[in-house]
């Protein structure tokens, strides 16, 4: 404490008084803030360092995919689904193709099913790597990003050889997959997952076990079971709160019912169940489960065709369907209404990121601004999917 003119002052020279009532300070976080993972703008009202209110403003990346879809034929929509969650594009395509295939009643060849599962799980690994890497940058740990990007690059290279593109694949088609996968590629995937399993331990000890990181993440941004249900949280966010719900297990699609894997849930190892560290740990454990699934697929993959019978001019029978799949970031649902024509009458996308963002006004009050960054990072949003 210092003093000016005999009056007691605070740290910054301001007079100390019990009667001071300061206004809240409005702070705009984003849309160009590096920690918002895209163009999310959060309007924060802060009382010094404490967040009193956080209001997310969406729409900076809004392209009205749903309106586009009403004017495109069913095959032409697939490249657009890639662009929603550009870090989990394979899973997005798979969800859409499953929806339309279920309406058409197409049977998918076994080989295509295996290839799809391998791709989706590799994509899950790649997506979780981007999450963990960028999360490290948000929190001031840069090195993990470089290591994980190196691993992700290997996955992207595999995808590039299979589909021809690095991020926006258009690889999973209605009825099957575009290209066949060669034995050489299968061998390389097998080698890659073997190496990855070893490396994951290193990465986890580098990042997740670090005391400084634990102090940043444990007991921060706790999502309780009740909040998770109330806000319709899905995917790793839901499982981080200790709820065992995974569509791959509970409502199996594709060939997931034949595969053996565990559903990882948050246990509150370093703090409370449902805090940021739990959500991080669930994702890291999911990488191990994905490796397990990929190994089983590599063992079980069968020879055969890769495309089912789909008519050249696609007309989906009249009716509606709501189909959910488990994407890296949570559940992805497609609500397809068809009037029997060549284009969908309505295609509504349930995006998990959108519902996760709606959680922010509830999570933020009472947090430090720096903890808010950790919270936003931990729910892992991709703005392409939020705004669609």
């Amino acid at each position, binding site marked *: *404490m210092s003093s000016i003119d005999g009056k007691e002052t*605070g*740290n910054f020279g*301001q007079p*100390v*008084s*019990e*009667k*001071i009532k*300061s206004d809240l300070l409005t702070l705009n976080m984003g849309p160009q803030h590096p920690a918002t993972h895209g163009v999310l703008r959060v309007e924060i009202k802060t*009382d*010094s*360092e*404490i*967040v*009193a*209110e956080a209001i997310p403003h969406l729409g900076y990346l809004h392209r009205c995919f749903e309106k586009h879809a009403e004017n*495109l034929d069913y*095959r*032409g*929509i697939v*490249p*657009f689904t890639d*662009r929603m969650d550009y870090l989990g594009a394979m899973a997005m395509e798979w969800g859409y193709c499953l929806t339309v295939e279920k309406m058409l009643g197409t049977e998918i060849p076994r080989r295509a099913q295996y290839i799809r599962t391998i791709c989706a799980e590799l994509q899950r690994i790649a997506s979780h790597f981007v999450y963990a890497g960028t999360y490290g940058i948000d929190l001031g740990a840069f*090195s993990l990003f470089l*290591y994980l990007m*190196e691993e992700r*690059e290997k996955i992207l*290279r595999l995808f*590039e*050889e299979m*589909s*021809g*593109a690095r991020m*926006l694949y*258009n690889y999973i088609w209605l009825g099957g997959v*575009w*290209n066949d996968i060669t034995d050489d590629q299968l061998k390389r995937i097998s080698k890659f997952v073997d190496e990855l399993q070893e490396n994951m331990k*290193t990465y986890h*000890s*580098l*990042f997740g*076990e*670090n*005391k*400084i990181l634990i*102090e940043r993440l444990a*007991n921060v*941004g*706790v*999502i*309780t079971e009740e*909040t998770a249900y109330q806000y319709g949280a899905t995917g790793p966010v839901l499982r981080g709160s200790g709820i065992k719900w995974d569509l791959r297990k509970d409502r199996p699609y594709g060939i997931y019912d034949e595969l053996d894997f565990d559903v990882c849930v948050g246990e509150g190892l370093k*703090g*409370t169940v449902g805090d940021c560290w739990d959500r991080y740990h669930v994702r890291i454990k999911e990488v191990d489960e994905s490796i397990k699934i990929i190994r089983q697929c590599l063992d079980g993959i069968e020879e055969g065709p890769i495309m089912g019978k789909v008519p050249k001019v696609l007309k989906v029978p009249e009716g509606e369907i709501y189909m959910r799949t488990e994407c890296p970031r949570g559940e992805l649902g497609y609500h397809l209404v068809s009037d029997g024509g060549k284009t969908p009458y309505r295609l509504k996308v349930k995006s998990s990121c959108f519902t996760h963002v709606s959680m922010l006004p*509830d*999570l933020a*009050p*009472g*947090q430090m601004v720096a903890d808010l960054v950790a919270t936003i990072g931990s729910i892992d949003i991709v703005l392409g999917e939020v705004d669609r």
Partner: protein
Amino acid sequence: MSGITPDISNYASKDTMIHQEELTFGKWCRNIWDAVSTCFKGLMITGRYIVAVKPVTIEYPEVREELPTNSRSRLFNDVDNCISCLQCAAACPVDCIYITAVRRDKEAPKLKTDDGTPIKLDLRQYTIDTALCCYCGLCTTVCPTQCLTHTTDYEYAQYTLSEMKYDYLAEDIRAWKHRIVK
């Protein structure tokens, strides 16, 4: 300081209020030891990368990466083999392919593509607005004569949008045929 220190309980919902355990001297020492030891562990990993692991990046302008053969990059249409069937334009989800063709005279000499398909239309315009193109590859898969292909050419940035519009009937672009077609 009491007047300025914000009261967290004004804003915190019940869920986010976590009671921190009291910090004893023993715990304080332990925290420091944990922080130092785990950071050291991380630094050891980083250190290993400095010495033992070869760089994974390439020095771009000097070293150019060869893309995989089915990589979807710049589009090329071999107009001599094009039968103007318009299937690529119909399949394109962003409508970036512009084709106009006129019917060939019956007296004119018969033309055939390399795989023997008769050409019944004279191509007058085959333009792709590459700035609009989303590189989804749907147009190449429907092409019956395999004349429209993705090449592995990836360095074609331009200063203006109009330069990204490729007229495949133009002489200079026809000349690419020997350079980039797989």
